[in-house]
């Protein structure tokens, strides 16, 4: 018998089943089809504008920083201002997400913007989130042709743009949106939920930011909530 056969036989023996029971199969199919929501915390269940405020507050509670911009066109200036504020070189690497590609980067003449994945040599990256979750200040990043996963982890400073309309109260609302965009049960290769900058408390339980991922996470919430 293969390891697979042995393992499944042991499970079925322990459960006292054959695997062919219609009722059990129906229960499983039903759960997968309905994917019932469990307990949803009341915390994130707010009107849109309040939800965005909670999101920004929770990002900060997780040691990130957040700025609310009226329009996406203000992103390049906000990025340049952040770099100046922290005395960083005026260079960023971004993905080719159409929402980022459409921004007026050329208005920031000093800012050198390159496009693509990170090989570990970039200090600052700019990405676009698929969504945000107000409940915990969590960013939802989806990988794909235009959204390299390496931009989320290798640079020292990670700047993330998120549309105010994509800020949900809870994770469950995001999964619903994921299914609408990517199709039922077909996820992007990687989904990174990011809550604050990288950290470790492995040295004598003292919390320090910037373990292997970014030391700094800055979130730019753009547009009208709705």
């Amino acid at each position, binding site marked *: 018998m*293969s*390891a697979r056969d042995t*393992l*499944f036989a*042991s*499970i079925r*023996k322990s*459960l006292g089943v054959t*695997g062919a029971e219609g009722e059990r199969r129906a229960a*499983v199919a039903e*759960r*997968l089809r309905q*994917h*019932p*929501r469990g*307990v949803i*915390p009341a*915390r994130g269940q707010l009107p849109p504008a309040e939800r965005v405020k909670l999101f920004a507050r*929770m990002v900060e*509670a*997780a040691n990130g920083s957040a700025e609310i911009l009226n329009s996406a066109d203000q992103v390049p200036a906000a990025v340049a201002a952040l770099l100046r504020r922290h005395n960083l070189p005026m260079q960023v690497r971004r*993905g080719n997400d159409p929402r980022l590609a459409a921004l007026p980067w050329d208005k920031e003449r000093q800012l050198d913007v390159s496009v*693509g994945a990170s*090989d570990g040599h970039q200090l600052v990256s700019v990405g676009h989130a698929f969504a945000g979750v107000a409940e915990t200040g969590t960013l939802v990043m989806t*990988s*794909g*042709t235009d959204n*390299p*996963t*390496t931009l*989320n*982890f*290798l640079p020292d400073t990670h700047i993330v743009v998120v549309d105010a309309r994509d800020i949900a109260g809870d*994770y*469950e609302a995001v*999964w619903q949106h994921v299914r609408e965009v990517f199709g039922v*049960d*077909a*996820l*992007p*290769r*990687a*989904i*990174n*939920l990011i*809550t*604050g*900058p*990288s*950290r*470790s*408390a*492995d*040295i*004598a*339980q003292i919390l*320090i930011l910037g*373990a*292997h*991922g970014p030391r700094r996470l800055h979130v730019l919430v753009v547009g009208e909530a709705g």
Partner: protein
Amino acid sequence: MAFAEHLTSPAFKENARHALADPQLQSALHGIETGIVDRRRATVAKLPEFDALRDSARAIKNHTLAHLDLYLEQFEQKCTAAGGHVHYAVTAEEARAKVLEICRNANARLVTKGKSMVGEEIAINDFLEQNGITPVETDLGEYLVQIRHELPSHIIMPAVHLTKAQIEADFRRVHTHLAPDRNLEEHQTLLTEARVILRDRFLSADVGITGANFLIAETGTSIIVTNEGNGDLTQTLPRVHIVLASIEKVVPTLEDVSQLLRVLARSATAQEMSVYTTFSTGPRRAGDPDGPNEYHVIILDNGRTAMLGGQFRDMLRCIRCGACMNHCPVYAAVGGHTYGWVYPGPMGAVLTPSIVGIENAGHLPNASTFCGRCEEVCPVRIPLPGLMRHWREREFERHLSPAAVRSGLAFWAYLATRPRLYAVAMSLFVFGLGLLGKFFRRFRWLPLAGNWTQHRDFPAPQMQTFQAQWKRRIRTQ
């Protein structure tokens, strides 16, 4: 068996003696009781739905375990459809062989590792090294225990037993390419040194091995939860990603995993949410600028299917948060290494005997005061003291407990099942002891209780048994 060389559970008592006499360990352990316990309480207090979420988490795990064969089939189907490979391993040996086969096929020399308790369980690092492949742990705590050739002493904080001074000394010992007189006073400097060294490994590794906090049946996805971002780099940068999982990691849907994530970080590290929760579904896709070319999931049994059919099924709900050990007075006193294998504390006291046998780990379920704090904080409500009691019963039934314990218990059982005799014997005993202690109020030494009085005095009883006092109280009311 392969675990034998690391297994010191049979020497629990001796390990405990050493641990109690180790000032560095005692100072390192002090932080648990004063830090994480309070922070967890504060974080939990901010979420009024926390207890309802624990019930929900328990129900999800129970439902999944009752349909485990079907959810694993579903996971396999979806993972394969996304271009991944699913492998099964009944034993630790089979899992190790599969990892090696995948590494050899990829001509791998250097393997980076995210934190994986299944990896510890199958001792994958030693095995890879024996076969000419260099494994590098990338979680800072795991890196520390790797360079010290130790087991992790905690399932979430592997190096919680170390002081900063020890870590500094280890870095000087191992990082010999750096100036020996460099300043390592700050925690930040130590972290930066490890970050720079490991960054290089991330970028040059051929294979990345991670664990899985969860597998999602609905989508064929594996999930890791980290704060450092190390597991994420481990599974993004190398050509091949291997996930080490065990059968009970599977959950049905994205919604189900969201319930579990809400209780995991709060219970483990007192965070509302861990920094990185990464969902991986298959290898790099056409047009993707990054990600691994191959994606393998190895699903291990190693004694778990047997637990599913017996008294220990509840233990398979465990999501490895470590809250039970953070709240355990025994763990806080003796630390994780005393338990003698990879799973310490209350969860280890139940799980370790299931994997390595009660004959090797009989001390573990006995090393508990049954204070119940572990069960009180468990996010999936595992009745840990009850399960430890099952192990004690089995140990007794199999005549594994020492003769003195067995005859003592037999004598006690004889008395306790004869209420009149018990009452007479106890009042004589308590009266006698009370008389002896009348002047001193406490005993510095008692026959047959030397181990107790060596560390503290035994208070003298108040001449009358509780039952007698209770009866009198009822009468006088």
